[in-house]
């Protein structure tokens, strides 16, 4: 095999992480959407809607995400060790919420009792929050630890949850008022998500981030805004205005909104996850003369 040519500066600046692949990304993609779906299904249940299918969908998404991540870890048969650090680890806390989601969800499906439905929604929301905290606790990845990443991820998870309710609403709710409500809530959450996303990007640029992270996020900014939010919002408005076959517009609107969120999360976990890299606030003084300027290769933005 031909030896890889070493370039000057290699392994000094930030590098794209390669330990978490699509399986880890899937946990954030499916788990976030599933948790959001459970939260908004619980809210929809307050309007007297039968949300059992939605609960099942939410749990399936969370289960799929966790299964993917189970295949990712190096020692899958030790997976129960994940419960050993509730004191500080958000990965432990995410794992601890999961049985509560499935337990309450199963009871909700079996009994239909509203208390269990609501609890499932609460634990679904907690799952979304725990996932956001997992990324923000990872100090080695500047794009994740930025303080605006966490609210952006939570907003994305909830927007996806509402969007999935929108996709299902033509099938699970017959009243036009109900569908109008779903469209309005989803529209509002898309707005929150866009604001959180733009605030996150602006914060990263202002505070400084690895150039690779900025490039990767900038690459999805346009498609995310146009298709995942604007087009989805237009379709939701169409549904809200009560045009002919308006209810059916909720389906593509929701799918586009969910797809946009998944694109952002995949990009964040895989493509934009560049490491901190190395920096020298002072170059070593050799002989006479002053130290050189500080060095921080591979960083863009203000920092």
């Amino acid at each position, binding site marked *: 095999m031909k030896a890889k040519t070493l370039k*000057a*500066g290699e*392994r*000094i600046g930030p*590098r794209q*992480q390669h*330990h*978490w692949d699509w399986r*880890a990304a899937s946990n954030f993609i499916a788990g976030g959407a599933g948790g959001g779906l459970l939260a908004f299904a619980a809210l929809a249940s307050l309007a007297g809607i039968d949300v059992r299918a939605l609960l099942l969908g939410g749990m399936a998404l969370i289960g799929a995400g966790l299964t993917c*991540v189970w295949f*990712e*870890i*190096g*020692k*899958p048969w*030790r*997976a129960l*060790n*994940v*419960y*050993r*650090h509730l004191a*500080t*680890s*958000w*990965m*432990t806390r995410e*794992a601890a919420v999961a049985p509560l989601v499935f337990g309450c969800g199963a009871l909700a499906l079996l009994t239909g009792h509203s208390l269990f439905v609501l609890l499932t929604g609460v634990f679904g929301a907690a799952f979304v929050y725990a996932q956001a905290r*997992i990324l923000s*606790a*990872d*100090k*080695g*990845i500047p794009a*994740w630890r930025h303080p605006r990443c966490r609210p952006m991820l939570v907003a994305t998870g909830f927007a996806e949850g509402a969007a999935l309710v929108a996709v299902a609403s033509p099938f699970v709710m017959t009243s036009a008022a109900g569908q109008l409500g779903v469209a309005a809530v989803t529209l509002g959450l898309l707005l929150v998500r866009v604001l959180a996303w733009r605030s996150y990007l602006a914060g990263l640029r202002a505070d400084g981030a690895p150039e690779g992270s900025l490039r990767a996020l900038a690459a999805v900014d346009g498609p995310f805004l146009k298709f995942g939010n604007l087009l989805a919002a237009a379709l939701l408005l169409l549904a809200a205005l009560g045009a002919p076959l308006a209810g059916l517009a909720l389906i593509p609107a929701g799918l586009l909104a969910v797809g946009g969120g998944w694109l952002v999360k995949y990009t964040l976990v895989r493509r934009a*996850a560049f*490491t*901190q890299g*190395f*920096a*020298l*606030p*002072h*170059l*070593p*003084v*050799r002989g006479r003369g002053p*130290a*050189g*300027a500080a*060095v921080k*290769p591979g960083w863009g933005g203000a920092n």
Partner: protein
Amino acid sequence: MTRYVMAIDLRRCVGCQTCTAACKNANATPPGVQWRRVLDIESGEFPDVRRSFVPISCMHCDEPPCEEVCPTTATKKRADGLVTIDYDTCIGCANCVMACPYEARSIVHEAKFAYGDTPIKSEAVRFDAARISVSMKCTFCVDRIDEAARTGQVPGRDPDVTPACVNSCISGAMSFGDLDDPTSNVSRLLAETQSFRMHEELGTGPGVYYIWDKG
């Protein structure tokens, strides 16, 4: 209390990578994995171009972000400041890899050796199957430091209980010892010089000090 730290005099380091080789030999790290490596940084523009060599490894932080995120408690900080990994508890989730701002941690999923499938002698002696598919990193040669408690020797002063990289350094750029002991070589060295710690703004409190100028 004891707080073991390393002081690296960047003015002395010549980038020979002897510490890298010593670490590989002492710890039998697989190909592609270096618990200790030396960055070669060229900076500035002609005619004011500078070249700096920066040895890096696990920083054995005061507030290790890897310990905080570890879901299994496999990563722990000891009372003497060393950050350790319990290979029998780690699940290889790589959360600590993401949390470490110093790229100090690695995970390999299959046994690899320097020259193909068969380990060379030093690798055969030191091969540890428990390190496959779990997180690993520089230990500050913890086995040697623990030996000091038994023999009464002093880490940083007596070579037998001092990290391999420090012992190997040809220019005397590396020092190791107890920061809480004012008479230790690292304490005296750091008192006499100007130093910084990498990415100190992140609040991790790294245990590796880089000396860049006289005091």
